[in-house]
């Protein structure tokens, strides 16, 4: 994938987030470039969702800074809004609008012309076309996630953040989604997704490994395999266990 080290699309610098006395994020730093597909992995409560919310500007980091195309999320939230979309694990919808109207509203608010073909194409790809006139509250969890993805992909953001996208999906849909994400990556979209599981054929460009609100590992699959002395095919479980073990060893030494 193209690596452009001069101008990172997304730059996360030393961000921290504190709820009361609980440190949800501590000193997280990384950059992402255009056209990268990155998997954010970690155990429950590792801080993945909080990190995604800080990047999307849904939550303001208590320390550090997130910038997108050089603009800070803290100060230019409105300007960066059109470049970033976060799809949470349980996306909400308007009770009064049908699935199709969610896409229609999205397109019309942005003043686009001839959006209908793209919307039909997206709904067909995600198997929602027959349900386009139904209200999303009557959908299953997986269907709701797919509709949220259609809404996000219709506006083609520069950065797409997905929180647990594979959890609500059946294995076939999960494979299809991965294929879709790969296609968008080749078109230049940067995708950061948090997940506990990845399809077998999934090969992200990078992994970000989180534990206890800290980034404890970062790199390409080959780099991480070398760093944690892993052999054979890289599985999420093995990677996570190795990273946590290495982190524990470092902490014990200190």
């Amino acid at each position, binding site marked *: 994938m193209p690596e452009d080290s001069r101008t990172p699309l997304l730059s996360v610098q030393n961000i921290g987030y504190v709820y009361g006395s609980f440190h949800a994020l501590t000193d997280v730093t990384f950059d992402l470039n255009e056209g990268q597909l990155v998997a954010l992995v970690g155990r429950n409560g590792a801080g993945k969702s909080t990190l995604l919310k800080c990047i999307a500007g849904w939550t303001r980091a208590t320390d550090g800074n997130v910038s997108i195309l050089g603009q800070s999320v803290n100060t230019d939230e409105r300007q960066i*809004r059109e470049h*970033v979309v976060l799809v949470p694990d349980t996306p909400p919808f308007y009770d009064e609008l049908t699935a199709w109207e969610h896409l229609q509203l999205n397109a019309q608010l942005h003043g686009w012309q001839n959006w209908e073909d793209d919307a039909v194409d997206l709904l067909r790809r995600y198997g929602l076309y027959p349900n386009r006139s139904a*209200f999303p509250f009557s959908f299953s969890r997986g269907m709701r996630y797919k509709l949220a993805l259609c809404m996000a992909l219709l506006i083609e953001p520069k950065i797409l953040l997905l929180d647990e996208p594979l959890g609500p999906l059946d294995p076939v849909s999960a494979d299809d989604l991965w294929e879709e994400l790969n296609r968008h990556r080749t078109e230049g979209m940067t995708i950061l997704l948090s997940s506990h599981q990845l399809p077998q054929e999934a090969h992200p460009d990078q992994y970000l490994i989180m534990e206890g609100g800290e980034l404890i590992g970062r790199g390409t699959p080959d780099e991480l395999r070398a760093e944690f002395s892993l052999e054979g095919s890289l599985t999420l479980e093995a990677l996570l266990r190795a990273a946590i073990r290495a982190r524990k060893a470092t902490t014990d030494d200190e």
Partner: protein
Amino acid sequence: MTNDLRVLGWLRWKQFQDEAVYWLRVLGYQPDNGSLSSRAYILYLFGICGIWVGAMWTWAHDQAHALGGLLNGASLSDALMVLPFIMLGLQVFVMMVALNSTPLKLTFEDISYIAGSPISPAAPVFIGFVRQVLTRVVLISLLAALITIFLSRPLGSTVGGGNALRAILIFIPFVIATWAIGWVLGVLRLIDVRIRRVRILWVLPLLLIPAAVAWPDGLLWPGRSLILYILGHEPAWLPLAWLALAVVLVWGMTRLAARIDMVQATDESILYARIQSLGLMAWKQIDVQLRIRMQSARGSRKALLRLPDNVTGFRALAAKAAISYIRHPFMLLFSGLWGAVLTQIAVLILAGNPPVQVWILWLLVVGAAPPLGMLYVFSVDVEERFLRQFLPVNGFELLIADILLPLIATVVGGAVVIFANGIQIEAAFFALLLIGVLSVMLALCGAVALTSRRVLQMRLLATTLSFGALIVGWTATHSPLAVFGIALVAILILSGMVTTNA
């Protein structure tokens, strides 16, 4: 069957105890502490409750007695003619409700542990009937007693007590029989799929009303017999006859209930179960309950109207808000009602020319009961960050687009009250302008609160400061222009906050 009834009765009794303990906890009772003092505290609570109920009953009795003094012979005669129709209306209403959806309402726990168990369906139907009827018997009998006291006044100031006692005696079996008829119909519907297929079945009882006009002797006899008994013109055994009828109906209903389709009852109970699962929140946040009801009503139906194709930007946003309100009209209705009620109160205050404290009280009412319907769409837009990220407008534009239709409804509600009070045209124009400005201010106060972390405190603070400034301005200058000037400043400040925060 008897065994099933015993088991289910025990379960309901335990559930009742749990609920009672919950409410007693709210009042300071500690159920884990079985000491003498905690038992004494329960007695104290029941004593206080008894005194309160007694005091309220005495007050209501006195009011009914005093109001009855305004009645003359002619109006009493008119009321006695209408009452049998009202009782028929109650019977029709109960039948419609039972035919519209299963009278046996199951919670999620009931669906899991009762609907799926091998006990006879007659047991939950009977217990469900008893639970539902108990509260109705108490409330309706007491209401009937109060109405009797009110209506008995023209007949002499001493006859009210005896008549009220007879009203309670006759209404107990009447209410049981009325609900039993409804449940019999509801049970029959749950038994026979052919009956369920008749979609308009639940509306059919309405035909009894015109039928009663055409053939009063045939359909109004229940109400007439009750009134005659209350007035002492029917034999003393009449309540026993009604009781016998009620017992036969309940017995028949229980026999039939053994054959109901429990799957159908479960299906139709989902809405009830969802609302019950909210607990107290169903009443504290009525919009959540309304949203669930709306989802249930709309789920299988085709969407009403559609988003227009040829609008973009702000107009698309306003169209979305309008269609949301049209498809969820309760919220629009709330706005209209809110405008009407607050205007009526203001008109009454103005007419009385009271001290400034009354206006401050009005302000507190406004702050404590803001226009819920007006911010319904806006609250979804700002609270759901996933949806907000797709709206490329600032908070103020979003608010204006979202409140246009309910704002119109509020002004219309106020206008209806103004014209109903016969206010002169110049004053009416000024009042309508004021309603519009005040509604925008209140919407802005609510919007500022919704975009802050401390919603209630911020709403009260914003409302008190902005409306307080208006009251101070009016008290100091008595100039409408000054009031509008202050309102404009408040609107500008609040708009700035919404623009930045939403």
